[in-house]
């Protein structure tokens, strides 16, 4: 009995690995006990279930996405700090190969799929319906399903660390390295299933927001009156719908190779690994634009608002968004110019890759000229937007350098590449999401985040960024390859690596300031009583903060691109205030536990497939089917908010 337990602990809980694992186990156990205890003590279980786990309200789903993204930013950040610590000195022994390989794999995967993706979805959810004058998204139930698929996919991926072992074949997970023959543990299965489950949710989100934006706009909101953030979500949604299926297929086939003995990508028996590489990047390149376009959208809103000026060149902004989303389907080969596709193919993809930079560059100039002859307020969202410009300019420029195919033969797989994509992903996506978070935070919670702590975070994170990543360009010129857990002293890579590590610590401190800022502001943050704390321009700022669950008591009629700004200028803001005569009962979707249960079922099934345990696998799939069947017989999924209730709410908000 004891022997069996020991065996279990060593095989699945990896207790033979020592203190790091024991510590994590203890920490996780304590956290779980703590959460359960608090919820029980304060009798909050019912509240959790009714208000959050079963909610179909886009604003709450957005908030849950954001919390998850911040937690994952923390996890991915810890991974990053561990790696940088190992790389600080040549020949360092802090991590061994096995752990380093696992950590860069989880870091990359988490940052892209479980940090950047939920962060953009957070803003999709929180902002889009409010900007277009809708009461919810097109498919609120599906929206909740998307969230819980993401959540349980991410959970599945994360438990690999303490149960069975993490994946270690890189975030791109190229076969044959990721095939059973070379990577027998459960880690790679965790990778495949975690991403697959959350990926289904992502496709649904793409469909949902495409439908929402096309069908749910308030009267008068023509496409060319849509705020640019909504435009960016439209572009990103279209890209999701076209790109994610490639990933789904790639992951599914690789999973079949691993658990069903097929030979799609194996080395022997006719498998062809380069097929996976192509499928992965057919998704992978659009993916980086999927996460960065919403950041562009957020910057467009922020730059206009904090310059108190109309966005410059709206038409160019829209067409550049659309151009980017089209061209970025024709560049994927730049991730493997050196796989010998031939000079004609490489030339085509090289020039297409450079061409993506054109609309991106245009956007930068349009932001600059939005600020030109404006009145620039350096509040937190604007600080991050301004910091984005030089950072992304360099990142985009080095991207053009990488697109020069023959030169890429020297940059590929080197630290030059690492520096480049961190500069675009951090300078673009992370800066954009933080800017967006600061900007829309009052709309979500009714208070602003503290400026002073935010400035500390800003300066630490920015200074740290350049200290961390500029030396990595130089390391690339010194010939340092990516994914090396250790390097020798005689190549002269030591000093710059140490500098880079110091930069990473500075960024870590920056993140801690953000945590401190949030905690501090919950109590002491400046309350937003007007609903329009930044002197905003678009519809969401016409609503109180936080927004009532039905969003608009009366659906507005839109007559201008910067509707709210125009009304404020003309002194006609009461046009958007509800009149008691106009109020009608409001139809809202009912909460449902099914999305959560679907997520749980997928989790159980995924867990079963990871270990080839057929019982949970089948049970989980049956659970999914049962939830779907149950849902399809629920005819009564809406309810009506009576006029009196709407009126009472609006009166209590001082709007009637």
């Amino acid at each position: 009995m004891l022997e069996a337990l020991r065996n279990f602990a060593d095989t699945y809980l990896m207790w033979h690995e020592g203190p790091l694992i024991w510590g994590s186990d203890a920490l996780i156990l304590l956290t779980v006990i703590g959460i359960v205890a608090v919820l029980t003590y304060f009798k909050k279980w019912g509240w959790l279930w009714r208000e959050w786990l079963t909610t179909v309200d886009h604003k709450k789903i957005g908030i849950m996405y954001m919390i998850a993204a911040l937690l994952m930013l923390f996890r991915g950040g810890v991974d990053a700090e561990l790696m940088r610590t190992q790389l600080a000195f040549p020949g360092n022994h802090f991590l061994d190969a096995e752990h380093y390989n696992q950590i860069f794999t989880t870091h990359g995967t988490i940052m892209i799929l479980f940090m950047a993706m939920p962060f953009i979805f957070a803003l999709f959810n929180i902002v889009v319906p409010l900007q277009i004058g809708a009461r919810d998204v097109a498919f609120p139930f599906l929206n909740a399903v998307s969230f819980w698929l993401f959540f349980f996919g991410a959970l599945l991926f994360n438990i690999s660390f303490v149960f069975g072992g993490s994946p270690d074949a890189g975030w791109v997970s190229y076969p044959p390295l990721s095939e059973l023959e070379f990577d027998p543990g459960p880690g790679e299965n965790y990778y495949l299933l975690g991403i697959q489950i959350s990926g289904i949710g992502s496709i649904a989100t793409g469909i949902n927001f495409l439908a929402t934006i096309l069908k749910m706009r308030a009267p008068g909101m023509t496409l060319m009156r849509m705020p640019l953030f909504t435009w960016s979500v439209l572009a990103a949604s279209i890209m999701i719908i076209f790109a994610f299926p490639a990933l789904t297929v790639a992951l599914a086939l690789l999973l079949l190779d691993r658990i069903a003995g097929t030979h799609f990508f194996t080395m022997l028996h006719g498998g062809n690994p380069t097929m996976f590489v192509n499928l992965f990047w057919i998704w992978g390149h659009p993916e980086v634009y999927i996460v960065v376009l919403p950041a562009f959208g957020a910057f467009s809103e922020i730059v206009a608002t904090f310059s108190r000026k109309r966005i410059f060149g709206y038409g160019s902004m829209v067409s550049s968004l659309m151009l980017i989303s089209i061209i970025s389907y024709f560049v994927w080969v730049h991730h493997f110019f050196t796989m010998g596709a031939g000079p004609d193919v490489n030339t085509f993809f090289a020039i297409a890759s450079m061409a993506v930079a054109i609309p991106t560059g245009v956007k930068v100039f349009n932001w600059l000229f939005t600020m030109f002859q404006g009145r620039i307020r350096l509040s937190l969202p604007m600080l991050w937007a301004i910091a984005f410009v030089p950072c992304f300019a360099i990142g985009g420029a080095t991207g053009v350098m990488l697109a020069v195919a023959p030169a890429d033969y020297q940059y590929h797989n080197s630290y030059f590449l690492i520096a480049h994509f961190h500069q675009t992903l951090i300078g673009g996506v992370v800066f954009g999401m933080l800017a967006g978070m600061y900007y829309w935070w009052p709309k979500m919670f009714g208070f602003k985040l503290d400026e002073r702590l935010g400035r500390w975070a800003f300066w630490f994170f920015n200074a740290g960024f350049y200290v961390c990543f500029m030396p990595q360009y130089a390391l690339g010129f010194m010939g340092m390859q990516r994914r090396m857990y250790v390097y020798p002293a005689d190549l002269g890579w030591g000093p710059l690596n140490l500098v880079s590590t110091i930069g990473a610590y500075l960024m870590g401190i920056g993140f801690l300031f953000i945590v401190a800022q949030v905690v501090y502001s919950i109590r002491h943050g400046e309350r937003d009583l007007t609903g329009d704390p930044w002197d905003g321009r678009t519809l969401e700022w016409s609503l109180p903060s936080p927004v009532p669950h039905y969003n608009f008591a009366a659906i507005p009629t839109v007559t201008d691109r910067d509707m709210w700004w125009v009304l404020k200028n003309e002194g006609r803001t009461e046009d958007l205030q509800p009149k008691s005569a106009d109020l009608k009962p409001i139809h809202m979707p009912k909460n449902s536990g099914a999305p959560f249960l679907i997520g749980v079922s997928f989790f159980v099934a995924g867990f079963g497939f990871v270990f080839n345990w057929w019982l949970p696998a089948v049970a989980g799939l049956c659970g999914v089917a049962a939830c779907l069947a149950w849902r399809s017989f629920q005819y009564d999924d809406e309810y009506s908010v009576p006029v009196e209730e709407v009126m009472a709410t609006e009166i209590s908000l001082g709007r009637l």
Partner: protein
Amino acid sequence: MDRGKSRLRSFLLTLGAASALFLSGCSPDYIVLNPAGPVAREEMYLMILSTVLILAVVVPVFALLIFIVWRYRDRPGNPAAYRPEWAESRVLELVWWGIPIAIVGVLGFYTAKTTFALTEPPESNVQPLTIQVTSLDWKWLFMYPDKGIATVNYCEIPTGVPVQFELTADAPMNSFWVPQLGGQEYTMPGMAMRLWLQADQPGTYYGHGANFTGEGFAHMSFDVVAKSPSEFAQWVNQIKTSSSGLTLAGYQELKKPGVMGTVSYSSYPPGLFEDTVWVNGGRYFPDMMHMDRQANGGAGAAPGDPNAMCSPPMR
């Protein structure tokens, strides 16, 4: 035309030298910027050209940003113009659509040219040398089909002679990279890839696998030693006389995952490279092998030979 070309060359060279100096403070550690052969040099020219061209956008962006943020701060009594409704300018937008398009045009032209040029041997009137490279877990096997010798984790080449590296993998795909001689190319199971490199000066050049292959990946470095042709010939003779041969059994042993130092072999089973490619998938994509198996002397199993599936068709 030729004059213009050489002028561009010398301009780039000066600029390159200047920026390399600036970057490295004369340090030889910046190996990518210290090319020792024509391929690496061509690639460096393109790096410099692209750097110059992108600076034409980056510098104005920085300058504009600093100027605008400083000038249009929301300070009380700021005398700068404020035009909240000004949001269109055909002329300005033409400028910043036009300039990047022009830049991409120029850069695209030179990219295309070099991309095609680098598929040819750098020096056309010298008989090239072929070296066949197999990446293993976690070591590099070099075979000299014309000389019959093989080495592990180092290779020697004659200076001034174009070397055609034929690359494959008998393990997860890696990437063969010798920064001072030129850029990398993937080594892929079941395919034979080609990479032309050439060294101008004698020297020992750092090489490393560039694509992650698991646990021992960080230790997959190798040296490429360039010597004058006569010294190279001497070295070949010395290996032939003083080392022992690599047998098939020896190769199976070598293939087992592990990290090791350098080894030399006086001989190796002929056609080992071609057979490796064939077994790992070349048989299914004969056109992907980029080579005529018969001409190279590989005599593997015929397509469809059931034995070949599990036991490599090597004599």
